[in-house]
């Protein structure tokens, strides 16, 4: 019984390590989408998601600025679907309308708090590390 538990633990540890490595690699790759125009906000938004799970977080976008959101789940583009909503849950943007594009720019007239949701395109993968980056244009 103890042997089984040990094997199970090793398997789980291996899965954890693989998942963490996947997140790191994805984050590194996602940075390329910010390019040289956009300064990272200094944070990496990452979550392991499975099947129809949705990752969500809120952020403030300051008026008079242009932002870029880069979103990846793995190394191929188009594997992560993401949408941006305002505080009243009005849909402001979804990359599903643009062939799951990995990065998009947002020009902000007035300061706004938004909710960003991300989920996997299940036709392409059923699990993965979702990484979102936010950059702002100087």
């Amino acid at each position, binding site marked *: 019984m103890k042997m089984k538990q040990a094997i199970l633990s090793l398997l789980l540890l291996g899965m954890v390590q693989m998942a963490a490595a996947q997140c790191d690699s994805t984050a590194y790759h996602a940075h390329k989408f910010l390019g040289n125009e956009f300064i990272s906000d200094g944070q990496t938004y990452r*979550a392991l998601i499975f*099947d129809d799970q949705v*990752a969500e977080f809120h*952020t403030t976008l300051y008026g008079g600025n242009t932002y870029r959101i880069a979103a990846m789940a793995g190394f191929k583009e188009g594997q992560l679907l993401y949408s941006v909503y305002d505080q009243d849950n009005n849909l402001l943007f979804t990359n599903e309308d643009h062939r799951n594009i990995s990065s998009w720019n*947002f020009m902000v007239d007035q300061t706004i708090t938004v909710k960003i949701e991300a989920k996997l395109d299940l036709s392409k993968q059923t699990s993965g590390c979702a990484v979102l980056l936010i950059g702002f244009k100087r």
Partner: protein
Amino acid sequence: MGLNLWKNQRIINFTAPLSMESMKQKINILIALAGCGLLLASCREQSVKGTDELQLEMMDSSKTAIVNVSGILFSIPSPVQTTLLVKKSGAAYDQSMLNNPANYSNYSSNTQQALNAGIYGTDMAYASIFDDGQAARKAYKALDQLAEALGISGAVDPELLNRIASNVGNTDSLLMLSGRFYSEADSYLKENQRYDIAALVLTGGWIESTYITSLQASNGNADAIARLAEQKATVKTIRDALAKTCDVEFLKGDIYKYIITLADLYDKVEHTYTYVEPETLPEQKTTILRSSSSYAMSNELLNQVSEVLSALRNTTIQ
């Protein structure tokens, strides 16, 4: 301001102890294996709780299920961005307000080191934006020492560190590279479940940039007043994130008390919002967000916020 994951038909609570026996009774071994992998991996990414603190709770299938990761993932606007606004608003540079770079050696606890790593990062950006390369270089050296003490430096690409050091006088490059530095540090800290340190670094950066903004706001700078008022959501994010990631000792301390006081004061900031349909320009891969919003604070509130911010910042750099 947290991250939530949800999935139909079950709630996974990351805050209570995991019961393997309970799991075995509820799901077969294959699902348990996959589920544990999911949970452990997710925990490693998002939660400060250890693997022995997880609990998989099966719920009524009729309920919408949420994977609650305790709001560990949160977003704080870049302090660099706020600092840029200070210059854009026409404010004068004031080197005397920077945290003394020599103070870094006074910071012996990880909490102090993390908070002041954020503060020196903002000082570096502030000095660089105002073309004070010498002050930026000193702030960078202090930041570098604290990053070393926190074990962050070894996790960041050495080439990136070299580029930061050699671009201290080049504002555009420095801002770009420092954003990347903080992002890599943030990634490393989350990877190693040091969510408290990650939150404190971000908090330090926010304290400094907001303090700089408040100095300008107190001088009647309209842009600075507006930006200060716009921190309404962010200060609550910080309060909640620290509550979920930091230890009891920190939460009983003066710094956290000041943050709670600030959050309470910000409840009085008046906020209005009106949705306006955004305009999307597919060829430019751009969406223009046209909704209108406003944040307003009275002079009395501005003074109160500035006073608390000053006390918070001074306590942090002590």
